């Protein structure tokens, strides 16, 4: 029969282990903190200076169809087309639109290879271009959605990521989601007049 003191010691040790492991589980893992991207929050119209370029989201369009190079893609959901300008600051570069993500408030992400070819660049430093990035998504992902633009090859790398609040409230989401038209994406690079 263990003594009272031994029982108390056992309970205290178990309780301490429990408290310790709870704190440990609640704290972020040092590796994920170390490898987390550097987020730069911004709104539509605000330029964001990333590691090697400047991006500005300038507007939104939506539709059921997108067109580029005589190719048309049709969706049962909706195409959200983000208008943005891009300007490298160090060297001639492309902004690969396939690495951009639209993130819904519940964490769902949309992006990747679009059903038609898209592109943004290359352009030399100091010569901004206007691009259109299409995202095929269900209308319920629109309210409160954010756009993630990484400086590197993905939005999860330890690198700069612009986090743009697209400013879509319920009314705007309804309007964007109800659009039935076709959005034309220019074939050629559009240089922004300076």
């Amino acid at each position: 029969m263990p003594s009272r003191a031994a029982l108390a010691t056992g309970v205290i040790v178990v309780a301490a282990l429990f408290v310790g492991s709870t704190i440990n589980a609640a704290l972020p893992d040092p590796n994920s903190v170390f490898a987390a991207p550097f987020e730069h929050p911004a709104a539509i119209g605000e330029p964001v200076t990333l590691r090697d370029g400047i991006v500005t989201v300038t507007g939104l369009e939506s539709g059921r169809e997108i067109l580029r190079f005589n190719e048309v893609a049709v969706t049962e959901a909706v195409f959200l087309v983000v208008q943005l300008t891009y300007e490298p600051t160090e060297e001639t570069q492309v902004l690969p639109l396939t690495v951009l993500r639209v993130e819904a408030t519940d964490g769902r992400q949309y992006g990747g290879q679009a059903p038609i070819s898209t592109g943004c660049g290359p352009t030399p430093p100091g010569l901004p271009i206007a691009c259109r990035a299409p995202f095929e998504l269900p209308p319920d992902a629109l309210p409160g959605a954010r756009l993630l633009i990484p400086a590197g090859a993905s939005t999860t790398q330890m690198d700069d990521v612009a986090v743009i609040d697209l400013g879509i409230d319920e009314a705007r989401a309804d309007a964007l989601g109800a659009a039935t038209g076709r959005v034309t994406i220019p074939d050629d690079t559009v240089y922004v007049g300076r």
Partner: protein
Amino acid sequence: MTTPTAAPDTTWWRRNRLWLLLLLPLLLLALAASSFRLVTLYRPWSWSGRVVAHGPTGTLSEDFMASDGQTYHRDVTVTVDSVQPVRSLGEDAATPGAQLWRVDLTLAAPVDQIVEGCEILLVDAAGRSYRAGRAGKVAADPTNRFWSINDEIACVPEDAPGPTGGLFQIEPSPLERPPSWPVTVGVVTPDGVEPVGVIVRWQMPAYLELATPA
């Protein structure tokens, strides 16, 4: 109560002098041991090997892996013949607000070396670089509906490229490449940019940086 002796040969510093001396090399060893990422990842996979020519002529000697997975060597001598602003070059011009530069180079390399697939860039005084390709270019003739442009540039003669990397093996040249040949490319910079150097590069990490001729 004992009084510590004040003799200099029994101070803490003196008693531990061997370890104190070893501290510096041990710290250096620890630093070297943690440089794995720098040496095996960062340096080979970035343009870390700057070769400055200190003039308009220079030679890049590098070992590189070709498409067949084998390591080869090349020694390419590049001469910047001229860098001059032009209104158009071939069917290309610069977009409004930008300047097109005609860059004339002469390349020389042994005929059995692989020289295809280079990039040519102009550098300004602030270190920004502008790559030859389609960036910033528009049709010189706006009515030309068939204008299109590739982002790749040719740095070897089209009919005599020398050995080229195929999918699994090196293809011989259909015609023997001359010992030296001219390369002309167009580069677009924003208005007001003055190029001070030319970069010619093939594979990371080494690249050749030349001065523009006076």
